[in-house]
Each structure stands twice: as C-alpha cells, then as structure tokens.
C-alpha cells in the first residue's frame, strides 16, 4: 500500500507525459476500430464469400470466380442490372428536379421560418419507410385514392393503370420517399453561396434569371450532384419498394440479391452480386464528390 503510494509519488511527474501521448493513440484506435470492425470487416467478409460456392444447401469454401462469371454470362442478370441503374438514375434526376425549387425557396426565407420549414420537410423521415410504401400503394392502386379522384373529376373514364404495379410505380414511390434526402445537400450548398456574389452580378447588370443560371446554379452544382449520388445510392440498394409496388414487371437487382439470401440460400452468389452493387455505389459516390473537390481547388 505505502510502497504503491510512494511509487506513484515518484513516478507521477515522469509518467505524466505518457498518458497524454497515449490519449491520441486511444482516440485513433477508437476512431478506426468502429469503422474497421463494423464497416470494413463485414465488407471484406462479403468479398471473401463472393468467391465461394454452394452445393446442395452447403457452402463450399474453395475459391472460385464462378459467381462473377455467372453474373456476366447469364442472360438474366445484366439486363436487370442496367435497368435498375437506369431506374435509379431517373429517380435521382427526378428527386433533384423536385428538391431544387424547394431548397431554393428555403434559402429565400428569413430566420426561424426557414428552419421550421426545413424541419417540416424532414418530418417524413421520422416515419417508418414501410408505412410510407403502404400509404403510397393505397394512393396508387387501381381503385386507389388517385384513380378515384381522377374518376370523380371526370378527367378519366376508367381507372388508369399507368402507375399501378409496374416500374413507373417503383419510380414514383422511390422519388417520393427520397426527396428529403435531396433537399438537404442542395439547401446547404445554396446557403453557402455568398450573397455578395449575387449582388455583384446584379450590379454588373445581370437580370434575375441571368444571375440564377450563371451564378447560383453553377455554384450549387456540387451540392446538387452529391444529392443526386446520395439518392441514387439509396435507391439502388432498395429491395422492398419494387417488391411492394413493382408488381410483375418491377423486378430489380435488389430483389435478385434479396432472393439469394432468402429462398435460394445461395449466400456466395448473393455476396458476389452485392460486391458488384457496392462497386456501383462507390463509383456513384466518387462521381458525386469529384465536382465538389475540383471546385474546391478552383476556389
């Protein structure tokens, strides 16, 4: 007991710098451990599994590229893959088209009103996404709210099937679900544009439209593109929306991956498809981020 006290007394001044040297180490370890353990390790596992195969319900742990060969040669997968990419690109473009005016309107508001409205726009994110899909489905159905309203107003004389259980329905539902994710980055980039630049543009004789197209839009491009890549990534990973509103023609890549882990019980193939999807996602994020960084350099 006493010796320990004595030790501490002697060593304390000398040992003092070492904990402070250790602290950043621990902080770094904690900062790295979480992403390594919860993000990188599972992804590495996926990559590893993608080189295995399945025989009669058991995973065979002999490395093979058969899963990747199958993806590129089987006539089923590539068309669905491209169709899904195209669909998600359309969702991203639509989301940005809807979100931009909203975000722009927000920046024109002053003080508290701006943030109250922003919070209101984000409220849908608090609601379960499955419930939102159910809600959309009862709006879009053949006898859904939309069709009944259109019939009642006499705009159509029989229920329109344009948005009922097909790829259009998936497009519409994903767009509705993901708009809030597009509003935020666009709003942030618009907000960052110094007012002085717009005033300068006006002082130099530009009309409002000219200022908008030649100053505001280019300067907001990084935010708009990151909003697009954000929405694209969220949409391409979705498998529930196509299942719930896609009907018999709204089959997407996410559904194929889902089935490999459920009914097919072919984890290695599912892992290979996921790796391919992850590659697409990484490319999309890089594209979304590129403009931002190159712009940053110019400024």
């Amino acid at each position, binding site marked *: 007991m006493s010796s320990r006290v004595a030790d501490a007394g002697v060593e304390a001044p000398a040992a003092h710098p070492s904990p402070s040297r250790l602290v950043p180490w621990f902080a770094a370890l904690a900062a790295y451990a979480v992403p390594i353990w919860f993000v990188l390790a599972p992804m590495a596992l996926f990559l590893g599994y993608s080189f295995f195969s399945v025989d009669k*319900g058991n995973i065979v742990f002999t490395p093979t590229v058969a899963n990747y060969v199958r993806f590129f040669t089987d006539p089923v997968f590539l068309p669905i893959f491209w169709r899904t990419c195209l669909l998600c690109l359309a969702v991203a473009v639509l989301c940005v088209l809807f979100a931009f005016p909203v975000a722009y309107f927000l920046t024109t508001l002053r003080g508290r009103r701006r943030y109250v409205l922003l919070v209101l726009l984000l409220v849908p994110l608090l609601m379960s996404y499955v419930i939102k899909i159910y809600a959309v489905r009862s709006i879009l159905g053949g006898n*859904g709210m939309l069709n009944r309203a259109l019939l009642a107003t006499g705009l159509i004389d029989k229920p329109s099937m344009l948005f009922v259980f097909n790829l259009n329905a998936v497009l519409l539902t994903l767009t509705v679900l993901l708009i809030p994710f597009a509003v935020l980055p666009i709003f942030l980039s618009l907000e960052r544009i110094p007012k002085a630049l717009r005033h300068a543009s006006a002082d130099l004789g530009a009309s409002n439209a000219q200022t908008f197209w030649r100053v505001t839009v280019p300067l907001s491009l990084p935010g708009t593109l990151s909003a697009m890549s954000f929405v694209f990534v969220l949409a391409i990973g979705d498998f529930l929306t196509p299942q719930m509103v896609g009907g018999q023609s709204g089959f997407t890549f996410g559904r194929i991956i889902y089935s490999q882990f459920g009914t*097919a019980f072919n984890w290695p193939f599912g892992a290979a498809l996921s790796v391919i999807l992850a590659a697409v996602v990484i490319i999309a994020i890089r594209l979304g981020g590129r403009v931002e960084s190159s712009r940053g350099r110019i400024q």
Partner: protein
Amino acid sequence: MIGFKHVLGAAALAAGLWASSASAETLRVLAWEGYADPDWVKDFTKETGIDVDVVFIGSDDEIWAKIKGSEGKDFDVMAVNTAQLQRYIDASLVKPWDLSKIPNQKDVLPRFRDLSAIKGMTRDGKVYGIPFCFDSIGLIYDTDKVKPAPTSMTVLWDPQYQGKVLAYDNGEHNFSFTALTEGIENPFHLTDEQFAKIKDKLVDLKRNTLSFYTTADEAMQIYHNNDVALIWANYGQQQLKALQKVGAHVAYVAPEEGSLSWLDNWAMTSGVKDQAAAEKWVNFLLDKKIGAQLSERTGFGNTVTASSNASDGDKLVWLESVEDPLKRSDLWNEIKAAP
C-alpha cells in the same frame, strides 16, 4: 440472521423447482403457437397428473436447431410437418409410435385414418407422425367478378382476368401447383423437361397477374385498392375469413387437380423420457372438443372433426421437400426477370 434465513429459503425453493423440473412426470413439448393452449394443458394435467412444459417455436429451422442440438434429449414430443419429418427420421432423432397406445387415432377423419396412405408418415412399416393440424392452399375468387365459380387453378391463366390475378411470390410452390394443373404425377420432383414446360407456363402466369404478394395482410391491402378477381391463397382459410370479415364477396375453391396442403404431426423424439406420457398427450389432443377448438381458434383444419378447410371429397396433395430448392428459386428469378 434474517439474511441467512432468506438465503436458506431461496435455496430450498430452488431445490424444489429443480426437483420438479427433473421429475419424470413432466412432459416436454415443442410446438407451434396454438397447438398446446394453456386450457388444454391444464385439463391434461388434471386428467393424467402429468405436468407439461411447452416451448413454442417460430420456424422449421428453429425446431431442427433445438432437436438436433440436443440430439433429441431436450424434448419428448414435437410438432413438425410431413416434409420436415423426413430429415428427423433420416437422422434417427424420432422414435416410432405404438398406435395401440393412441386409441383416439382410430376415430379421426377418414382421410387421416390410414397413415400408410399419407406419404412420409411411415417408414419401413413404422409410424413416425400422428397428424394433428393442416391447411390447404386453394383459390379465393371474387364472387361478383368470377362467374361461374372456378374449379381449377387453370383459371389463373384465363386472359379474361388479366391484371386481376394475385399470385404468391414463391418459386417452390408455384412450380408445384402449376405441375398439378399440367397433370404431373409428382409435382415435387420435376424432370428437366417438365421444368422447362412449367417455366414457360409460369411466364404466362406472370403476364396475367397484377402482382405477387408475400403476406396475407399485403394481399388484403392490394385487394382493397385494386380490381382483384382471383387470389392464389397461400394462407388458406385464414386469408378467406379475414377477407370475408371486412365484407369482401369472396369464396374459396379447392382445385380439382388437387390442393397443395401442409400437415403438421406429433412426433416423439429419440430422447423421450417417458414414452407413456407422450402417448397420453397425443391421445388427449385427438379429441373432438379440442379439435373443434383448434379449428375455431387458429382457422386451421384438425384431424378429428370436419372443418371448412377441406371436405371429404377434396383432393389434398401433402407438401414434400422439393428436388432442388435452389434451382426452383433461380428459375423463379428468371421468370420474374422475363420481359
């Protein structure tokens, strides 16, 4: 001092509990919710003096994990379906029943009386499963829209109902029922030739459907918001009753080519401690009153009294494990991906 007394009391209580759970007169039952209701357990204990410990399970895989994990020693009786029962017999995890000890089995509905006639129930002349609960997968149709009443699943392909058909999102079942409509003898073991033919049929079916559903609730919601005439009723009578309850004009048909049906059985584990108790349990449950209560409470068919799940003339095709689930699932994806 008081603390010591408490500890002593707790120890005595624990010892008492230990003794009661270890006594030979406790039957350990592994069953699905609804197969061992508290009032039945209470009556059983009153009648026989045997205590019952029930553990409820949520999936076939869970039963397998529990039984295989303890090599059958943790439970005395369990409820499994006919298709699943096979792997337990293969692994010697179940023991044959002595039918003379289960006299009530003689008075069950005609369909369940001859156990050797139900595929998968017996092996080498020994009975491994006692049928208890079943349901069939039939066809639900809207009585206002579909006239006359259909008699076969082939109506799902009728172009008259294009875009008004709700099918089920499961490759395994879809191949089986389509094989039945094609008159294929064993829908669970298809040849390559049959696979190709059924696949084409399913692509046609897909073009006639509005959507594929997975849960009964989902089917109900789609029915409400769309013009649906026919539903391939994976959830059988439960699904029908739920629809009728909300005022839908629907009826149920058991197709003439046969309905895919599941059948849950009581099986005795190889690690059974008291065989007589297990026999008494099953005999007790094969009772008219309990059978009627089972059907009333769960909506499933029982084997003792007639229920709306199947009339005597309906042809039921008991589900078996299919030849290659992976192949069926891959083909189902191809069908869904087809333009």
